[in-house]
């Protein structure tokens, strides 16, 4: 039996779908799974799965950390999440590194609550990151461009 996963031709959504399959199977994310995982105690299935799971996560990270995010029609679900407000936030973060939610709310003249929930979603799908400095949460992105390929 032979199974081939062609990572280079998979869309971000397809990679996410495969990752979700492992998360459902083991009831945790890869980083949670790896905390308790000992390769020398693992069973055969885990040894096979973790090898594939790590590669999928690595490829996803590589794509999301690249300045140019390429989406295809297969990523419709992800594209749907890019509402005007979320795109505005992404755009602001490409110009100003390390902004707090209140900085963004002021710049966009929007209520803090909607900015916080938009930031949390953008972080969850991996388009932005945050770091804590002196007890305050700062957001940033590596993105510079989002390209939607129609074929």
């Amino acid at each position: 039996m032979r199974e081939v996963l062609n990572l280079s031709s998979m869309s971000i959504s397809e990679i996410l779908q495969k990752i979700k399959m492992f998360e459902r199977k083991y009831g945790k994310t890869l980083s949670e799974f790896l905390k308790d995982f000992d390769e020398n105690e693992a069973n055969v299935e885990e040894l096979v799965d973790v090898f594939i799971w790590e590669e999928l996560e690595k490829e996803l990270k590589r794509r999301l950390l690249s300045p140019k995010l390429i989406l295809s029609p297969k990523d419709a679900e992800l594209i749907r999440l890019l509402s005007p407000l979320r795109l505005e936030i992404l755009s602001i973060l490409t110009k100003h590194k390390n902004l707090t939610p209140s900085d963004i709310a002021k710049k966009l003249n929007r209520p803090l609550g909607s900015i916080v929930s938009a930031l949390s979603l953008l972080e969850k799908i991996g388009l932005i990151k945050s770091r804590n400095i002196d007890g305050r949460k700062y957001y940033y992105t590596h993105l510079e461009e989002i390209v939607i390929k129609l074929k």
Partner: protein
Amino acid sequence: MSLRIIKEIHKLPRGQLYIIYVEKNGKIIKYRYVYNGYNWNKDEWIRLDHKPEEPSHLHIRRRTQIIQYELETLSKIFNELHKISDQAVMVIKHA
């Protein structure tokens, strides 16, 4: 750039062999071979791993009673492993 993950399962006379590898532009850059005997538990296996910049390593995990091998038996096992590991690494190198 072409990047693929390939998983193969081979039924061998005494057990099953799982081969998983990452192929970048047609070249294998990382692999894991896991063998599990039909009469072994699922957490008993022989595994050969290779990652870039790391030596390939062979692990054997078998449940045993207290080990009371004689030097002669141990020497036979390690001699055989030496030969086999040379062959295994060679095969991969030229694959």
